[in-house]
């Protein structure tokens, strides 16, 4: 950093005088609209930002150029001037054929990648015939029991051309193996497959609450999938580390970055500890962020996370391959910001959030539909959401230049602040013994719950205005949007299909495959993926494979703290 020049000093004095005289005089006449201005993370926002606020940043080393370390300005040199971001709406409901039809509709509507939501039994590693949970079959996602369902899900979809993202966590290893087996049985080689399994179990314990096994074996299973991915499907991302759920559960933007990068470090450090070269795995780690309402903070957050991740992988993990330093990211507009009141307002919220994601340099984007505070989206609502992205891309011009916010005094200052504060949180978690310890002690859950509570208090005291909820309220609002309803008869039909698969498979083969997993599972350094793939090929179900692992590893107990 250069020392202050005489001109710098004169400038600082002028800004200070302006603040003291001009600003004070104006506030005398018209007081500030709010007692204090802050970002959603609670950082104070000043009246104005000037060159003095970014003097500590080096134009070459901190801000740099897109496509170059530390990637503050983007992971690619040309960004959307070359290839636009991938429009990737998540979809999943009913049986595999219902979701398959929706995929075909989405591809026809202009979507360029697929994303799967699974139903709750699948997400939690239970089969559709589970006595209690069968009522949730196909409800908020698609029901998948065996690889036979996966064949139907991707029927007619060119897996060698379309990338698929799967929102699946504790049983991710099973679904990853299923995807590979479906491709293999269709004659598509592993090395052309692209896509993602979410597989970020640590954020489940602290935010989304879909977990089965205790943290340590779960983290080791994630490492297994990363190693397997590098071996058999090297263009696929087996791990997508998520800030989205952490944020939607209540975290601030800074906490979202700090906790998410702590999680990512935890997986890679466990892999390194197992003797795996970090440059074999880190290039395929991708990220998923929540883009909320505070426009500049959200764009700055993506820039800050990219820079911090590049520095952490290079300096802390010792990664040498530049691809390991890249934070490639998917973004979704904030589900938690949607209101059930005046739902059409959600179209505006989503468009503005999507714009922040694009200005922040995302690689793919899901825009929420206006009806999602009430149900999974209807087709007409999805169409507006998809078209919102097309409007941003083609009509606004924001995608025609790389990182248009770069160099903004405010945005660079925010980027730097978020990077510093997130790093401080990462160091706090390190001091506790890392993320597994921060999960087990309840620290991370409490941090997020406290932030959620603070935000609620601000809404209830009207410090935070939510349009249509605590201001601009329509007293006699009637709802006139279409609500998506579950497909009738899904559970019954899925039970028949599962029974049919179980009747037609070779039971001895299934039993042998499951036994092999059971025998290998106690050694957490043993990669279970080849054995899980064998079981999947034999038509063992998600529930059967997870039951074996439950038997060996036990359950993680849900928290009752609030």
């Amino acid at each position, binding site marked *: 950093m250069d020392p202050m020049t005489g001109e710098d000093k004169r400038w600082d004095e002028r800004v200070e005088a302006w603040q003291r005289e001009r600003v004070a005089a104006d506030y005398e006449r018209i007081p500030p609209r709010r007692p204090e201005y802050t970002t959603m993370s609670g950082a104070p926002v000043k009246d104005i930002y000037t060159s003095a606020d970014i003097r500590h940043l080096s134009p070459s080393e901190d801000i740099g150029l897109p496509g170059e370390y530390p990637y503050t300005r983007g992971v690619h040199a040309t960004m959307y001037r070359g290839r636009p971001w991938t429009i990737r709406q998540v979809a999943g409901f009913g049986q595999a054929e219902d979701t398959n039809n929706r995929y075909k509709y989405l591809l026809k509507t202009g979507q360029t990648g697929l994303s799967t939501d699974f139903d*709750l*039994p699948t*997400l*939690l590693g*239970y089969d559709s015939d589970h006595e*209690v*949970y069968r*009522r*949730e079959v196909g*409800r*908020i996602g698609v029901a998948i029991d065996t690889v036979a369902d996966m064949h139907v899900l991707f029927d007619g979809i060119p897996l060698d051309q379309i990338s698929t993202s799967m929102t699946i966590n504790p049983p991710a290893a099973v679904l990853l193996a299923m995807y590979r087996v479906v491709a293999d049985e269709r004659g598509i080689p592993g090395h052309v497959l692209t896509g993602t399994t979410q597989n970020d179990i640590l954020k*489940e314990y602290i935010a*989304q*609450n*879909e977990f089965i096994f205790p943290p340590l074996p779960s983290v080791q299973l994630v490492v297994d999938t990363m190693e397997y991915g590098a071996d058999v499907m090297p263009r696929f991302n087996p791990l997508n580390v998520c800030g989205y759920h952490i944020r*939607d*559960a*209540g975290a601030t933007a800074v906490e979202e970055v700090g906790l998410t990068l702590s999680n990512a470090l935890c997986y890679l450090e466990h892999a390194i500890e197992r003797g795996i070269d970090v440059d074999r795995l880190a290039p395929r780690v991708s990220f998923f962020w929540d883009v909320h309402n505070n426009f500049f903070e959200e764009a700055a957050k993506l820039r800050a996370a990219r820079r911090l991740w590049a520095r952490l992988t290079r300096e802390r993990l010792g990664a040498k391959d530049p691809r390991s330093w890249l934070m490639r990211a998917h973004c979704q507009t904030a589900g*938690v910001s949607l*209101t*059930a*009141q005046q739902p059409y307002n959600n179209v505006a919220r989503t468009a503005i959030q999507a714009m922040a994601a694009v200005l922040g340099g995302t690689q793919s984007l899901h825009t929420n539909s206006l009806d999602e*505070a*009430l*149900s*999974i989206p209807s087709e007409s609502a999805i169409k507006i959401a998809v078209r919102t992205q097309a409007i941003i891309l083609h009509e606004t011009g924001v995608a025609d230049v790389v990182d248009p916010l770069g160099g903004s005094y405010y945005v660079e200052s925010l980027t730097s602040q978020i990077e510093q504060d997130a790093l401080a949180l990462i160091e706090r978690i390190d001091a506790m013994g890392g993320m597994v310890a921060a999960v087990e002690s309840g620290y991370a859950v409490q941090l997020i*719950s406290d932030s*959620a*509570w603070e935000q*609620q208090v601000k*809404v*209830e005291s009207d410090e935070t205005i*939510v349009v249509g*909820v*605590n201001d601009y309220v329509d007293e006699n609002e009637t*709802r006139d949007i279409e*609500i998506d309803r*579950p497909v009738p008869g899904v559970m019954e039909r899925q039970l028949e299909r599962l029974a049919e698969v179980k009747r037609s498979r070779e039971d001895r083969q299934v039993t042998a495959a499951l036994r092999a997993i059971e025998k290998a599972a106690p050694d957490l350094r043993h990669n279970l993926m080849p054995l899980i793939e064998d079981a999947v090929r034999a038509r063992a179900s998600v529930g059967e494979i997870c039951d074996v692992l439950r038997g060996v590893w036990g359950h993680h*107990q*849900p*928290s*009752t*703290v*609030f």
Partner: protein
Amino acid sequence: MRTSAADRRTPLKVVIAKPGLDGHDRGAKVVARALRDSGMEVVYTGIYQTPESILRAVVQEDADVLGLSSLSGAHLEYAEELCELLRENDRDDVLFVVGGTVPPEDAETLKGFGVHEVFGPGTPTAQLVEYISRHARRVRMT
């Protein structure tokens, strides 16, 4: 009826429950905290509860109020089963409220099962506190 002049003076006991496999508990925890701050005694079951385990919590805690939180779309099934269980076990004097992503037209169906009130997204917690304070220990399912 368990209501007496004596227990009207003790704090209301509330069980906040998450049925099934739905893990979205931001709302449940915020509600639990708001009710506790208002002076009620609150037990949060945690996620992954079955109707039976929720009934057990109501009985064991001798709860005056049951708050069921659902964001998975399975609110009708779980609430109906719970209403039956509460009646069968003679705990239909509990004030039973439901919150979460419940489409407004489902509110009437839920009330038909015996649920007393339904609170959708964006409800101020002060409104919950007021409703519960006014109605707890004065109800029986219809």
